[in-house]
């Protein structure tokens, strides 16, 4: 329990150093774009593969389970859309990104800590937490809604492609399902969730990296802990946000 209080205290202390005015905006801007490329663009391929395959799998499973003649075939499209937008494109994608982004951030910052690169910055008078962490948090949080939208679009496309290839329902029925009783709020709800999850992923992973100790083993341990804590918090916040927003 004491450990939990200590970690929470250290986390907020670190965040208070992260959310300061950058020393120079030109440096922050440069870092922001670099991190956007490293965190967002580098995650796109994984996002494409996972979203397309999950979109296709949801479509097959829904089609196979809708055997009643009283349920219209276009419900396959409705189900695929609702599953993707409500849970998959935010929560599941965030859990996948927690592994990719989270381990990358905590191991990068952790190695800088154990090789004294962070100490070198501090001795120069640079706020290392602000320089290293703020651009990561901003890049991931600002671009995360785009990730969610991309995942949603690719997921639907994956389902559509499967329908076109296998003919389990017609493409017209699938598209009709996608448009049926569509609620725009679900998109915003999912985008908000994704932004919160990306904030959690980047800040928690950065925290564990920043306080890494004990050589390369310590860096590995901090990456693992970052992923475990991040994944747990994503699930807790999923519950809270769903209760609050829906």
């Amino acid at each position, binding site marked *: 329990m004491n450990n939990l209080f200590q970690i929470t205290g250290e986390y907020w202390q670190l965040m208070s150093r992260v959310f300061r005015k950058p*020393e*120079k905006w030109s*440096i922050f801007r440069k870092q922001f774009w670099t991190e956007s490329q490293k965190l967002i663009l580098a995650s796109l391929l994984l996002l494409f593969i996972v979203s397309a395959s999950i979109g296709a799998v949801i479509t097959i499973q829904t089609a196979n389970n809708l055997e009643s003649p009283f349920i219209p075939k276009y419900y396959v499209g409705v189900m695929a859309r609702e599953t993707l937008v409500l849970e998959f494109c935010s929560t599941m994608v965030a859990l996948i990104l927690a592994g990719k982004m989270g381990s990358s951030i905590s191991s990068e910052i952790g*190695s*800088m800590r154990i*090789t*004294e*690169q962070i*100490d*070198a910055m*501090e*001795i*120069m*008078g*640079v*706020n290392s937490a602000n320089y290293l962490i703020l651009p990561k948090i901003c890049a991931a949080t600002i671009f995360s809604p785009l990730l969610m939208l991309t995942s949603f679009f690719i997921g639907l496309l994956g389902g559509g492609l499967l329908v076109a290839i296998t003919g389990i329902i017609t493409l017209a029925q699938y598209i009709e399902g996608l448009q049926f009783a569509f609620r725009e709020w679900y998109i915003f709800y999912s985008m908000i969730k994704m932004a919160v999850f990306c904030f959690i992923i980047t800040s928690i992973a950065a925290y564990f990296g920043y306080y890494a100790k004990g050589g390369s083993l310590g860096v590995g341990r901090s990456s693992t802990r970052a992923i475990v804590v991040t994944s747990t918090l994503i699930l807790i916040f999923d519950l809270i946000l769903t209760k609050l927003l829906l």
Partner: protein
Amino acid sequence: MIEVKGLHKEFDGKQVLSDINIKFSPGECSLIIGASGSGKTVLLKNLVGLYEPDQGDILYDGKIFTKMPLKEKKLFRREMGMLFQESALFDFATVQENVMFPMDFFTDWSFEQKLERVNFCLKRVNLENVNHLYPNQISGGMQKRVGIARAIAMNPKYLFCDEPNSGLDPTTSIVIDRLIQEITKEYQITTVINTHDMNSVMEIGDHIGFIHKGKLVWEGNNKEIMDSDCQPLNDFVFANNLARQLKKNK
């Protein structure tokens, strides 16, 4: 001048530094020597503000560093340069970007002005045509020299070196030692070096402090060290047969 007064530091109830009193003067290479785990690195980290002393003060030209507010301390650190044991060069940056890093933050110079300063610092440490290489593309000795170039980039008044020769061959170690000594004298920097390399002690030890079990037990220079009657120091300095033979012949 740096003055350490009554410095105490402990970790988890274990006393690591006890009542350290020492002065470091400008234009002099001051060496802190001692066995591994004696408290040298802790002292250095206290000097640069990475650790807070439990008791005692550190004064930089009369200003009490330990009692400075965080903001002032941060500004003050711009007058410090540090060379780390493993160089601590930024992996994500080229040699040029590493040396330019503090200038990017704390000057309004144009890129050309910064580049001119980078080239000057690299030339001063005898490095040329390495600007666009990354730290993992150069040797350990070159990394140390880039570390020195980065440390002197902002014309520091105080230079701290933590085991500057660790992992280097004896010839390269001497090159690095002489370079630090030249720079110290040329720019009248107050230089504090942590080392347990006896070659460095004999080569550049203008002022030496020996730490044993967290206490400063001897102070002198590289000439006086041979004739010291401090037992822990003699055990440390004359640990090998060659050194013992040298002392005997002397």
